[in-house]
């Protein structure tokens, strides 16, 4: 990164380059629909990026989502760049970082700030309140109508013990301020709200039986408190960094379209734009509010071990020399809705079943579920707390899928192999 007279080549992109990047990473959806008009407005230099800030709140979480997003660090920082004046030219690393940390208004783990002093606490209690800085800005937003913010919530929201299982700061002194209070303050006013990770999308590990802290997903928690608004769920334990990136850019593309396009009814009107974007978003989401273009197919559908599954060639134990389908070892790929098999992880290098580790359906609504992870779906094993009949119902859907898929394949196989599979499978069920 050179400074001075030479051309500075940092990591920030021009708007056009960014659209290309989105295509490469894989979000073809919004580009397909809005691509032409987006490019037109970029070329005409008309686009007003509508200055937004990103707030990332972390509750009853493990920070895995933040760290996974950081694995796509370049994409993360470029996405942040898009929130603020995207076409500004920079000439040094410091300026690049300034743009970034301007956009990332608040992040407990990754942000720079340590705390703002709250003089209102009195002379004998000097409280450095990290959240205080946040709240001052929040009041600005509401009262002074400043730039909108995007809210990411990581981690479930514990509601037991008055929410004191997750304390974020003190207000007034010595009185715990709970995460549930914080979320209620911000979720209503945010322009766009995302629940990142399985914990905030569906409850996740903290809500695993017996749910000692009464942890709730973001959807459920807001509904119970009378806030009905669209939450985009990005489940995954942890979610792939591309899922975060693509979902955010899809929303931003919609936002820019509705704000800039000459045919848009909300052109130039920020609040109307936000409302239109939120309703247009629903077309991109399935009934569980997950982006369809990521969570539509199962891990099983494109798994590279399908040929071994189709032939009934299953791994009987770990560490067998030939890599085989791990259905018998408990792989839940048939009911796990995520594109891991196509996208792969950590720079497309691998994914769980390919390393011999059966899929545990970490994107699932029931994760961590009641079934043991390393037992075959549909096998009649006593499930904790439930009778076998109820357990059967819980896993019944998966079994039906498995058998149905099997039925289709069977038509195409030869007689001999058909018989072999039938004997092996249906004798156990």
């Amino acid at each position, binding site marked *: 990164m050179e400074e001075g007279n030479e051309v500075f080549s940092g990591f920030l992109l021009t708007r056009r380059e960014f659209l290309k990047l989105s295509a490469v990473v894989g979000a073809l959806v919004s580009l397909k629909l809005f691509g032409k008009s987006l490019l037109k407005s970029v070329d005409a230099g008309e686009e007003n990026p509508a200055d937004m800030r990103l707030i990332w709140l972390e509750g009853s979480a493990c920070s895995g989502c933040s*760290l996974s997003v950081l694995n796509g*660090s370049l994409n993360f920082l470029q996405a942040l760049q898009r929130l603020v004046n995207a076409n500004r030219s920079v000439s040094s690393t410091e300026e690049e970082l300034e743009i970034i940390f301007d956009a990332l208004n608040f992040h407990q783990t990754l942000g*720079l700030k*340590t*705390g703002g002093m709250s003089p209102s606490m009195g002379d004998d209690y000097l409280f450095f309140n990290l*959240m205080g800085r946040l709240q001052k800005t929040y009041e600005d937003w509401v009262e002074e109508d400043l730039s909108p913010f995007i809210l990411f919530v990581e981690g479930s929201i514990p509601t037991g013990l008055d929410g004191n299982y997750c304390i974020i700061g003190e207000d007034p002194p010595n009185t715990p301020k709970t995460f549930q209070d914080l979320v209620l303050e911000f979720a209503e006013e945010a322009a766009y709200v995302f629940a990142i990770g399985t914990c905030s999308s569906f409850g996740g590990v903290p809500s695993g039986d017996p749910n*000692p802290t009464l942890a709730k997903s973001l959807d459920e928690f807001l509904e119970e408190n009378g806030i009905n608004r669209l939450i985009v769920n990005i489940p995954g334990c942890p979610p792939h960094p591309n899922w975060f990136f693509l979902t955010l850019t899809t929303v931003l593309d919609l936002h820019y379209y509705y704000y800039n396009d000459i045919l848009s009814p909300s052109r130039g009107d920020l609040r109307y734009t936000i409302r239109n974007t939120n309703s247009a978003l629903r077309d991109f989401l399935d009934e569980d509010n997950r982006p369809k273009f990521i969570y539509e197919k199962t891990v099983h559908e494109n798994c590279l071990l399908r040929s071994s599954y189709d032939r009934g060639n299953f791994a009987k*134990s770990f560490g067998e020399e030939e890599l085989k389908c791990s259905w018998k070892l408990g792989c839940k790929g048939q009911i796990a809705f995520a594109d891991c098999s196509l996208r792969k992880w950590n720079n497309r*290098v691998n994914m769980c*079943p390919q390393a011999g580790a059966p899929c545990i359906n970490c994107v699932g609504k029931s994760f961590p579920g009641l079934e043991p992870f390393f037992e075959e779906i549909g096998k009649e094993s006593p499930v904790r707390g439930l009778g076998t009949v109820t357990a059967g119902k819980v896993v019944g859907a998966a079994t039906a899928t498995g058998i149905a898929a099997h039925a289709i394949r069977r038509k195409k196989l030869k007689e001999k192999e058909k018989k072999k599979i039938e004997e092996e499978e249906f004798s156990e069920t």
Partner: protein
Amino acid sequence: MSSVRIAVNPFSRSEGGLGVALDWQGDGSDLGLTQGAKVAGMVWRGIERIVQDRNPLDAPIISQRICGACSMGHLIASTLALENAVGVDQNDVPRNALLIRNIVTGLSFILNNLYTLYVKTFPDYSGILFHLISKGSSNFNLGLGDDSAVYNPWDEINPDVGGFVYGILETISGKTHADFLLEVQKICKLDPFAPWSSYMQALNIREKMGEALAIFGGRTPHSHFVVPGGVSFIPSITEISRAKSLLLEGANFLGTNLVYDRALYLPSGINPYSRSRDIVISMANKYGLGGISGTLNNDLKNIDVVTDNNAYDLIKEITLFSLATEYNMYDIGLGINRYLSFGCLADPDADEVGDPNKGMLHRGGFSINGSLVDFESSKIVEKIESSWYDKGEGGPSDIASWEVCEPQTTPLTLWGDKYSWIKAPRYDSYVAEVGSLARMIINGWYKPSDAFWNSSVMDRIYAKVLETQLFCLLTLWCIDELEKEVKINGNKVVYKQFDFPEKGEFEGGGLIESPRGSLGHWIKIKDKSIQNYQVITPTNWNASPRDETGEGGVMEQALSNQITASNILIEEINTNNPPLNFPLHSLVHLVELSRIVRSFDPCALCASQ
């Protein structure tokens, strides 16, 4: 006023859920004596309860989600606990599996340490914030850009590290911005050219280490490829070579960006553990990584060259650590002189593989006042006097009597007698420090600059840097050994099936080192269902609250000592300037407080589970 509390809650750039409060008596006219510090965990999820009644094989996957950063550490500790419970001898685990477990452990150390150093720790020492302040960035609303405004520090202060002192000094003496940069540097010891330029590169290298880890594990964070009996990944030669080349990239980055000329600049008078010393020398020679003290040699007597003035001058010019000695960073945040390690990186060639004292490449032990004794797991206890629990005391000497954790049901009060979700572990009734520094001291690679072996902020950070380099070399050896097994011996065995009895009662423990320090999982199984599960994480040790004698954990003790050190700074300021009044000089404490807390690399979410 007669007593004051400074509180920072929550603490940013730690893994969430950490709160700190310093109490002290006195008013503005005298600097006062500290009554003490309290460090508290603010979040509880109950993972120990959630794994109960599940199939024991589920424990590694669920307990892994205690923390996303130390995910591999939890996975391995939990798997070791299961193996220990059903009587699996580590000598029987296939050699390849041991090597692969070591490789992913080493990679996760490097990954985590890069993240800790660059993302969490270094911003406290950097001049980037000066740049932002001087440009009048909208986030730093100090009103300095507006000439007409009279700046009142009680209005909108944004005391990010450095910024507050900037604003305060202007109000007092009306100096120019340029003057302040110099003044503040003196006070806050910040270096405008510190590692920001390598911030982006460090993130990139961290991703590469993640890629290498994912080659073995499928993905990172939260891979679950380690299973009782071995691992599930079958290595191939291409994959091993790819992982090795990624690791070498990481080693190169560390050697050129954090220390000078790829050397491990070690203090004099050290005596490294022979097993790791031999490996380090052979690997450094083989891969041209500079070796020890910038020379390629097998004779460690040359380590004394580090105390040579020339070597120190070179370090001073180039690295962050140049400031440390000059600005007393070895004097602040003084901890205690008792260090604990459970050992990590199982030595596949040892007689007792996995034994914390004899069977590890990076051995375990307990160091007290500079002398090392063997580690015994039965000496660990965990107490709840100052924690928000009604039940949950006990220790591995008798896991049967270790109480299942029950949080209190009465309303919580902050900073009272019970003030934290973190429990208080003790070793042989001592408070112990864990982490990179503890491991390096126990393995003989490092000696604190304090004569009494107390740790300081800079000791912890520097030990972490050295340890990251060390782990590059140890991991390289493990990859080389794996390559030998697969290529030359044609051996691809990574798993051995062990019987998991359907009936019966079993107990076991898995003790291992994770990047932040010593990690232990204990499990009690009955009829293939988990009856009791206990976890003690590294930050449990470091951020421990008070026990029944009233002695706090290391962080609390280091913070109490800190107030005295900051007072010396404040005296310096007051000598040359109009005296700072009480609330303002407390802000100086915030800088030091931040540096001290983050030098321990706390992960309070882990600690309270």
